[in-house]
């Protein structure tokens, strides 16, 4: 177990440097884009004079030399202060924390759906390879994989909301409904179905194909033949011998995808007006809200690093043969 702790400690030290690099790089990168938050505000007001623009720059600290701006920002980070949004006059951390749970709810639901349904379909196809089942599942996966997400989303909306009138077309809950407790949860659930389905179907296709291919590969290995020769029941061979060994690439992919948990999906959040962090980041770019954008990058990168670490640990659980190496 000492090996495991040492491994984690070493990864954490590396993570600090990665995050530092991310901060400096992004700090400089987003300032390369033409225009600044003061000019964008002036442009939107449709009227401006030099005093207005200068006042805003001074207020935002944009009149200082770049290195001092970076230094001030870094000082803030050391005390876990991500600063203020130029535009929204709110602490960055509050803005991010207000949006993060919604994104995690959406992408978490979508990813769970994708993994459960995708892996099941993939396993079914692999077990009956070449059969009618296999063709149907493979075709479906290919079709969903190839469809543009925004189009799929609109089609689902047209069917379930406009034609059938079952589900709302946008938002996360019914405003002014007075719902509380279970009612509120059901209301959010109704709003969650279409966006998470749209997002999840694409990933479901990926997992189905990945699982099928991986299982077929494992099925050819010696230990499977040995198992069969021993006369083990087929169900047990499929689940314990093939599927479990085939899951490694699936775990790897899911670990990478967990980055989506925090990055959010700009597209789905936009089409369904879901109040998540993807839209927050997108809008921050357009209005040059440097602090907000940097804050989102930092939170996202911290969480991605955490997920990767978690994936590595999960490997050893799925496949005890893997040891924590450094």
């Amino acid at each position, binding site marked *: 177990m000492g090996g495991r702790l040492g491994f984690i400690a070493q990864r954490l030290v590396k993570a600090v440097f990665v995050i530092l690099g991310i901060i400096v790089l992004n700090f400089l990168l987003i300032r390369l*884009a*033409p*225009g*600044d938050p003061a*000019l*964008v*505000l*002036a*442009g*939107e*007001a*449709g*009227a*401006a*004079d*030099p*005093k*207005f*623009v200068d*006042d805003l720059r001074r*207020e935002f600290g944009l009149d200082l030399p770049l290195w001092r701006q970076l230094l001030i920002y870094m000082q803030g980070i050391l005390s876990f202060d991500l600063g203020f949004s130029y*535009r*929204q*006059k*709110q602490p960055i951390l509050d*803005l991010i924390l*207000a*949006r993060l749970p*919604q994104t995690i709810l959406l992408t978490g639901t979508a990813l769970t759906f994708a993994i459960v349904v995708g892996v099941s379909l993939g396993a079914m196809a692999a077990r009956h390879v070449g059969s009618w089942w296999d063709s149907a599942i493979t075709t479906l996966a290919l079709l969903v994989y190839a469809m543009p997400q925004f189009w799929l989303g*609109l089609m689902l*909306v047209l069917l379930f*909301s*406009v034609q059938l009138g079952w589900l*709302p*077309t*946008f*938002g*996360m*809950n019914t*405003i*002014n409904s007075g719902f509380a407790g279970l009612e509120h949860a059901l209301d959010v659930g109704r709003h969650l179905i279409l966006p998470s389905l749209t997002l999840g179907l694409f990933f479901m296709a990926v997992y189905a194909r990945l699982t099928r291919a991986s299982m077929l590969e494992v099925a050819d290995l010696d230990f499977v033949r040995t198992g069969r020769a021993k006369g083990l029941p087929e169900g047990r061979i499929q689940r314990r011998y093939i599927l479990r060994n085939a899951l490694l690439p699936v775990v790897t992919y899911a670990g990478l995808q967990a980055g989506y948990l925090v990055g959010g999906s700009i597209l789905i*959040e*936009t*089409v*369904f*007006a*879901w*109040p*998540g962090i993807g*839209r*927050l980041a997108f*809008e921050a*770019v*357009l*209005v*040059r809200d440097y602090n907000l954008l940097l804050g989102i990058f930092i939170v996202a990168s911290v969480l991605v690093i955490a997920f990767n670490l978690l994936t590595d640990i999960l490997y050893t659980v799925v496949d005890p043969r893997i040891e924590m190496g450094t």
Partner: protein
Amino acid sequence: MASRRQVLGSAAGLLAGATLGLPRTARAQQKRGGVLTAILNPEPPLLVLGLNQQAPTQLVAGKIYQGLLRYDFDLKPLPSLAKSWTVSPDGLTYTFTLQDGVKWHDGAPFTADDVVFSCTKFLPEVHPRARASFDRCESITAPNASTVVFKLKDVFEPFLYAFLPAGAPMMPKHIYDGTDYRANPKNATPIGTGPFKFKEWVRGSHITLVRNDDYWKPGRPFLDGVTYRVIPDAAARALAIETGQVDLAQGNDVEAFDVQRLAALPHVELHKRGYETVAPISWIEINHRTAPFGDKRFRQAMMHAIDRDFIVKNIFFGLGRPASGPINTATRFHDAKAVKRYPYDLKKAEALLEEMGLKPGAGGIRARIKMMVLPYGEVWVRQAEYVKQALRRVGIDVTLESNDAGGWVKRIGDWDYETSFDFVSQFMDPAMGVARTYISSNIRKGVPFTNTMGYVNKRVDELFEQAPKQTDAAKAQAMYSELQAILTEEVPVVWLTELEFPVLINRKFRNVNIDANGPNSEFDEAHLA
């Protein structure tokens, strides 16, 4: 023209406290209750109208904050927080009498001190347009709690047009005096005098406003509240109107090609009025500093080569009017007879280019120019594509350049462009929103929405300077007519369209869109049908 002033003043007296200024239907007994749900896009940065006047802020904050005056569709001033006003015969002293019993949303009384604070301290510090208005005042004083006197340094006839809610919103002195206005923590919970109070803002999702039970206008508002839903996707916004999930769409909420389809739905009503306070004109902005743009014949050729009717019909689907000159027909002092007309005429355009010595070269190309596309939505991309094709027909080859909003505003402000699409609001009077584009004293590098073309004409400067100082309306009109003649001869920018915006309202609501401020108004007369 003293007579017009007296008319204005006495009309205001009559209107005071009475219901004469209200639409006819509002006098009957109205149903109370109902929540109007409207689209909000994009999400505003904050809701304090004194600090931010971009369109989505005005939409929501217009229910919370108020100005001294409102304006009807023909731009006649109406009472709002001021119940009446008089203008001295010399045109230098404006005296406003305030409504009785007005309270801020936190219960504190609204008095003349708040007006003085707003116009002398708060707004001049943070609001460029208000700063320009109140810099004209020698003094702004409150002789008693319900009277405010503005004394001007020089006559400025359009002064009464400075009091729109977005032009000069009244801000609470007891909350802001002595603080850093932009950093005041109370900015998160805006306090105004309007018919609706701020309740909740869930960022990325919605803003809810609820009825102000202590509103100063008796029996108003009728609605229980107004809810704004943030919907970033155009197709989703159209669907929300179609399915009745929201009751109001306006401005650019719905794509031009979708407007007629939605307006034909049985539960939807289309209004085209409600933007007279801004009355924007779209144009092709031209950087006169480089050849061939400094030659007016080139700009005149562009005017002749573009079919403005086509743009209105096929790009804006009938919303808007072809623009003929610098002053919108909805703005004061427009003169249809004074403007020089540029009918769609390829022959004339080619003749002008020929005269300049721009002969067709390889592929019939006479000149190659660059043009920046407006980064504010699909409709502007389609317009740019049309203009590119139209100019190609007379041998001008256009390279379209795309930027995002931040990049576009930077390049325009820094004069780093050849030509660009643009649209600019006029704010009711030429002195407010037209002069700034053409006067040479407003050539300021680094600042957008100034005279970024670098256009200089001494006579134009002089006329824009003198016209608002005329107390005689006929004299002012003569000057503005001369201005329109000069500018349409010189074509500093290529005017395209007087923009109109659709207001789509669910028929279960009445009296929603009742003045020149349209959907940005306070909605204190809106009610269920």
